[in-house]
């Protein structure tokens, strides 16, 4: 049965704001198939609060099999925030008494997350040239955070990631020559190992809240956090599928490689070669292509029924169009 989230939020408002608390707003924001995000607010004798609820609404499927629990996500946000990363403030981690399932509550941060707006809305014209540098700086605070103990985060390097996605690709039984060639090419170009760090794991335009004056306001969506090569987080934000129609600006559709790397170095991050970022960028396109295939399969196999899924399957060709150019250019 569909959970009555609104009723649960009324109860939660009283838990957070005291007996007199009254829910003044509750609405679901656009979210994924397995994760819900709700904006809500309450007024209470002690003051009003504007909050965000993040809750898992469906059991794990392939798409989310790599993800951490929401409780882990909340711990990572707190740990990286304490280390200087720009992240939302965790207000409350839900338990059974809240009746919301796996969920936590954050203080709402104002700004824009729609990638298309960041790359093209005139409101961001003034800050846009500085965003790639800010993204580089922001990553340092994350990568320098010691992983909180007891979280059991997965550790991944280039070879392990290729193994994982090739296994998933083989299981789909799809035959796509460009994906095959990308696997072969990347296997020959795996960068030398580096000391692994805490990664956001889904650091891309769309998962970052930007403010039209201040730029990076908060880094969101921590469910794919893991341990690995710092260049992985940099390569993912450079993957063309997240440039929103501006392939000429490699970082998120808003900035240049040099600025991302310079921001990282200036904040005290270790020096990272561009070719290393490009390896992860190319692996990012390949990974997104394989993910698109699995989303189609989740529909074909009857796991999900949404029309969204088979259409995402038709996005494999966008990654092929990108990969073939990257294969021509080399890393």
């Amino acid at each position, binding site marked *: 049965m569909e959970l009555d989230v609104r009723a649960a939020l009324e109860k939660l408002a009283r838990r957070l704001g005291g007996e007199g608390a009254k829910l003044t707003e509750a609405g679901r924001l*656009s979210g994924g198939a397995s994760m819900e995000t709700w904006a809500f607010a309450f007024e209470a004798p002690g003051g009003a609060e504007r909050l965000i609820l993040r809750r898992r609404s469906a059991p794990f499927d392939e798409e989310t099999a790599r993800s951490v629990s929401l409780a882990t996500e909340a711990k990572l946000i707190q740990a990286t925030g304490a280390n200087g990363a720009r992240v939302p403030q965790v207000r409350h981690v839900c338990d059974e008494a809240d009746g919301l399932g796996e969920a936590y509550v954050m203080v709402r941060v104002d700004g824009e997350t729609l990638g298309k707006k960041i790359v093209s809305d005139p409101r961001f014209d003034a800050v846009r040239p500085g965003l790639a540098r800010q993204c580089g700086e922001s990553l340092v605070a994350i990568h320098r955070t010691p992983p909180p103990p007891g979280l059991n985060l997965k550790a991944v390097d280039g070879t392990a990631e290729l193994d994982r996605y090739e296994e998933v690709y083989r299981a789909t039984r799809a035959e796509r020559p460009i994906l095959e060639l990308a696997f072969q090419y990347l296997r020959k170009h795996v960068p030398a190992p580096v000391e692994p760090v805490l990664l956001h794991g889904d650091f891309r335009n769309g998962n970052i809240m930007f403010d039209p004056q201040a730029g990076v306001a908060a880094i969101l969506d921590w469910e794919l956090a893991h341990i690995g090569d710092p260049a992985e987080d940099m390569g993912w934000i450079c993957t063309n599928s997240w440039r929103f129609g501006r392939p000429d600006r490699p970082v998120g559709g808003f900035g240049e490689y040099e600025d991302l790397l310079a921001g990282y170095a200036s904040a005290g991050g270790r020096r990272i070669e561009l070719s290393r970022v490009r390896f992860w960028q190319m692996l990012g396109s390949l990974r997104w292509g394989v993910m698109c295939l699995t989303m189609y399969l989740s529909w074909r196999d009857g796991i999900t029924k949404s029309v969204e899924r088979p259409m995402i399957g038709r996005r494999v060709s966008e990654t092929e169009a990108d990969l073939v150019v990257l294969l021509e250019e080399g890393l």
Partner: protein
Amino acid sequence: MITHPRTDELAESVRLWIDEIRPTLDPRNAFLARVAANAMATIARELMQGPAAEASAVAGMAAVLGHDGTFAELNSELCARIRAGELTVETPGLLTALAAIARNQIAIDQPSYKPEGTPAA
């Protein structure tokens, strides 16, 4: 096939109807309706452009592999030989053929997508 209407016109009529009712839907269904309209547009494009794209892919793959075959046969063999390391980025003509296949496919699936390497407008 019959022409009054053609299949792509049927798909187009459904797409237009979906667009018409979209504003009356709740946000989640409005989003899914947009996806559904896009699916109809993809079907219409594949009906129009698919045969030429497939013929071009068959010719391109046959040139790389040095023999004829159906799309499925050539595509399978191409994948197997790339996987075996017999065909690589250095193989003359391979990347050119794959690039043409990718261009034709994106023109059907997502014509507004700007691939890597597209210069600023």
